[in-house]
């Protein structure tokens, strides 16, 4: 998705979980998935249009810097739509500011992010950028 500020690209688990959520919402079986899907879609669109300053910290939250080896680090951010959480990092792709969503926790139970998911988000992010 593209906007005046930049792009949002979902890959890997982030994309597959988002697709699952969309399919569930479209089946109209429960209100929860509809709420989660609508909210995360609006947040991602807001990011693309306005950037992170247009979102409160309860919508888009910095998490932590993760080492991915060889002095490389990736700062992971979290989009928070109810218990549905998308993780990824900011970068530039093709000269456009981009949020690359790489990992997901579709039903987060604890307030604190799962370190394994943050690590996975950073790893997938790095792999994607390195081709």
């Amino acid at each position: 998705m593209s906007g005046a500020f930049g792009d949002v690209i979902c890959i890997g688990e982030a994309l597959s979980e988002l697709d699952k959520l969309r399919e569930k919402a479209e089946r109209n079986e429960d209100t929860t998935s509809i709420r989660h899907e609508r909210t995360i879609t609006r947040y991602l669109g807001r990011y693309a249009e306005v950037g992170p300053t247009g979102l409160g910290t309860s919508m888009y939250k910095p998490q932590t810097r993760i080492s991915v080896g060889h002095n490389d680090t990736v700062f992971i951010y979290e989009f928070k739509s109810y218990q549905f959480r998308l993780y990824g990092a900011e970068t530039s792709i093709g000269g456009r500011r981009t949020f690359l969503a790489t990992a997901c926790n579709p039903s987060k139970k604890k307030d604190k992010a799962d370190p394994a998911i943050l690590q996975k988000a950073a790893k997938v992010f790095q792999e994607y950028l390195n081709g």
Partner: protein
Amino acid sequence: MVDFKSKSFNRELIEFEEDTLIDFQFAVMDALNQADMSQKDLSDLLGVSKARVSQILSSTANPSIKLVARICGLLNIKPEFVECDLLEVENRNNFEDAFDGFEAGWSIAAKRMDTCQSVWGINDNYAEPYEERQKVSA
């Protein structure tokens, strides 16, 4: 007008709820950014904790209409109820098309009282100048 009677469980209405909350929250964020204010500044103005403001700006928030009015008053935002055209639903659930404009039933809109520059509501033409939107409605 949406046929509310026949739709007790309805995706449009659930999304309408979410959009109304989110549009309010985005209007608050815009007002804070324009005034170079932080969420902490807003909590001080409201006389509530920073955590409470954070909760009001979260997906799980359900602020009372009076609290919404209070925040809008403090930030110079005027909420308005605006009649909209019937929703066009064919593509609105498509992820790529999710930001195309759509309208449903009645929506809430707000404008900055001083500049009248922004509108918030169910529509995605959030940034559209208020006067432009009024022309479209007419």
